[in-house]
């Protein structure tokens, strides 16, 4: 069953000198419930814009989006924003429980959830620290913990691991897959989360996703769709020895290269 569907979604921003910036689209996208979708594309092609529209933070200029929430008890989506998205005036613990607090979850329950999520991202020791006392990668993990604490149906993740070192990145990829698999179990509490995951790393996209969408240079459209046919649960580092992995990685890079060149060229034009 499709949980999100978009039809000819486009976004045009007003630019300088009354020009218009075609940021996105048209995008036709169908996301099945419980799917893990990774999105790659050149910088500035509209990936963040797409996620923001799906999150309801931005209105599309044209086209439609339909979202089918199944569980009204849970929030429909939570976003892990690109870049630092912690609230500097809240402690790490308070940041993580923020969504639960504004939704009125009782203190005891949300305290427990936040502590658990902080353990998941390896920041238990920093519960009472303020964001200025953390590194960029640690703050990114706080944002991740906050999104997970909300327990949404759809996770929108905009380069969530971009600021992380290689080791933490690998650890958190495994952790994310684990959480995602778990929520799929009947024991883990019903329906599996749907994840849309933007990344610049082709390997990361293949390791995590069921499908990898390659976007064109701005205004971003979906240029290609590659299925990652690996069995789950996946062991991320073993996957990379699979010859199929190398082949798919090559295919994605082929699709992406022209677009990166095109984006470069248009950026240079823009500079002149």
């Amino acid at each position: 069953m499709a949980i999100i569907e978009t039809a000819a979604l486009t976004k045009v921003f007003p630019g300088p000198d009354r020009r218009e910036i075609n940021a996105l689209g048209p995008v036709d996208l169908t996301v099945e419930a419980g799917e893990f979708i990774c999105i790659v594309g050149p910088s500035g092609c509209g990936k963040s814009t797409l996620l923001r529209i799906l999150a309801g933070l931005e209105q599309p200029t044209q086209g439609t989006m339909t979202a089918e929430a199944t569980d009204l008890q849970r929030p429909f989506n939570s976003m892990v924003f690109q870049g630092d998205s912690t609230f500097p005036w809240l402690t790490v613990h308070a940041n993580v429980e923020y969504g639960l607090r504004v939704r009125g979850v009782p203190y005891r329950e949300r305290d427990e959830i936040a502590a658990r999520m902080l353990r998941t991202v390896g920041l238990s020791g920093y519960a009472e620290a303020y964001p200025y006392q953390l590194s960029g990668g640690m703050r990114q993990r706080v944002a991740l913990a906050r999104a997970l604490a909300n327990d949404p149906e759809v996770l929108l993740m905009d380069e969530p691991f971009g600021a992380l070192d290689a080791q933490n990145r690998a650890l958190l990829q495994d952790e994310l897959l684990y959480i995602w698999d778990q929520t799929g179990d009947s024991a883990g509490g019903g329906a599996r989360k749907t994840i849309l995951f933007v990344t610049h790393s082709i390997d990361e996209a293949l390791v995590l996703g069921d499908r990898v969408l390659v976007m064109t240079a701005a205004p971003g459209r979906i240029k290609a769709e590659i299925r990652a046919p690996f069995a789950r649960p996946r062991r991320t580092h073993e996957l990379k020895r699979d010859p199929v992995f190398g082949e798919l990685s090559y295919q994605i890079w082929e699709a992406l290269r022209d677009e990166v060149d095109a984006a470069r060229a248009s950026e240079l034009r823009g500079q002149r």
Partner: protein
Amino acid sequence: MKNRALNLISPVAFLVIWELLVALGALDRRFFPAPSETLARLLELLQNGELTTATVITLRRMAVGFVLAAVPAVVIGLLMGANRMARIILGPLITALYPVPKIALVPMVVILLGIGETSKVAIVAISVFFLVVIHTMAGVLNVEQRYFDIARNNGARPWDLLTTVAIPASLPNILTGINLALGFALTVIVGTELLLPQGGLGALIWKSYNVYDIPTIFAGLIVVALLGWAFTVIMGEVERQLLPWRVADAAPARRRLQDEPRLRRFVRTWWLAVRPFSFTASVTPVVLGSVLAAYDGAWSWLLFAITLVGSVSIHAGTNLINDFYDWKKGTDTPESLGPNRALKEGILTPQQVFWGGVFFFALGSGLGLYLVATRGLLILYLGIFSVLAGWFYTAGPAAFAYIGMGEIVVFIFMGPVMIMGSYFVQMQSVNWNVFLVSIPIGLLVACILHANNMRDIEDDRANNKRTLANLLGRKASRWEYYVLIGGSYLTLVLLVLFGVAPPFVLLALLTLPKAAGLMRTAAVHEAPARLNKVIRGTADLHERFGWLMIAGILAAMVAQVV
């Protein structure tokens, strides 16, 4: 950081040269009285109460005008920042009136409100209002959009956006506005008092000018300067308290102790060793007791200073001696979490710590004996009692701390005894009212100890140390915590209801959110690390509660004088 001392060179040199020039006759003392003469006049004016009265009048006008204006100003500023419509409608008026020199409004205000107190308060209020509105609005407008996006994505409704994003994010700006407004209000009120000289520092200066009393003019100016400086210091502290999340730019990187010049190393080493952060437990009751006496009409700076330094010395001595014995017993090895860093890091030898403790005890006892000699034997009895209680606290076969009496002993001695003692030093008598007012503080001190015992329930049980906490068990000891905290707030309210304390002490209710937070944490957690936070938080609560009560009594005095 050496520069701190260098900072003093220019003002000191300035004063010395001035003094010399007057002494040599190069400056006419009729126009430029020597600094020593000004100082003598300052003390004289303090003694006969003229200066104090003038200061209180000025401060009262400032305080009333400030509160009247700042509260609506913050509300309107928030509204204008958050709502475009409000900005469009109110903006032009505010920006047009903001730059008008407020002192130039005095004639209009007098025409409208007469020359009484009202017009002076109004001038302050007008000065404060615009500054705070503008800074608050700018604060909200400068909040980055992405914070609102994040909040909304997490389910925040418009009201949440205001309370969890707009207000906390613009608080630094609001405080800057308030800080500027305080300085500005001081300037404007003194100026107004010069124009309408009816009491206050400005009037004092103006009247002295009329009779050519130049030293008094300087004395008045010094007080104005000191007030301005005090506001800055207080606001700095308020900012540190309210904005713990700001990058600590105010605290420069500390040099390692070993690299400091000798004198500074000496001072900092002992500063570390006496654990000054624990002092509030003894400072708060002394200040409260003394201020209560002042409220009842007896005050001497000298006695206050002696009481304060004396009790802090005893406290410091106790800390040092305790550390020495802990070290002797071997509980404070380098691996353990013992509090004394100076000893642990080998900066001080155990012998030095011991003799340091003896020194502070001697100093404290000396000052105490002076009080006994001049203020009466009651001090001696209280002193002996306290020393005995301190001794039997952990020593002897039936040490209080080991038979579940810790809270009661601490309650009595760090609450009523200290507060009533300090009161007695000033007043030469005590009464039941002082005892009643001391109850909340005593309960909160006991609560700090109890928080400690809650953390150590398991350890103490293993060591056969019976505390109320492990006698009661985990669950009931939580109730004891609630009762102690709730009891202090309840007592406070009752004190006011029965007219024992002035209503202003209800200021201490401002700490209620913190107390609620602590009780919630204590309700949920058993882990020592979490309870450590409860201990520190309770100590913090005691401190803030105490100072707000003190502030309340001072406010009641200010309200009384005029």
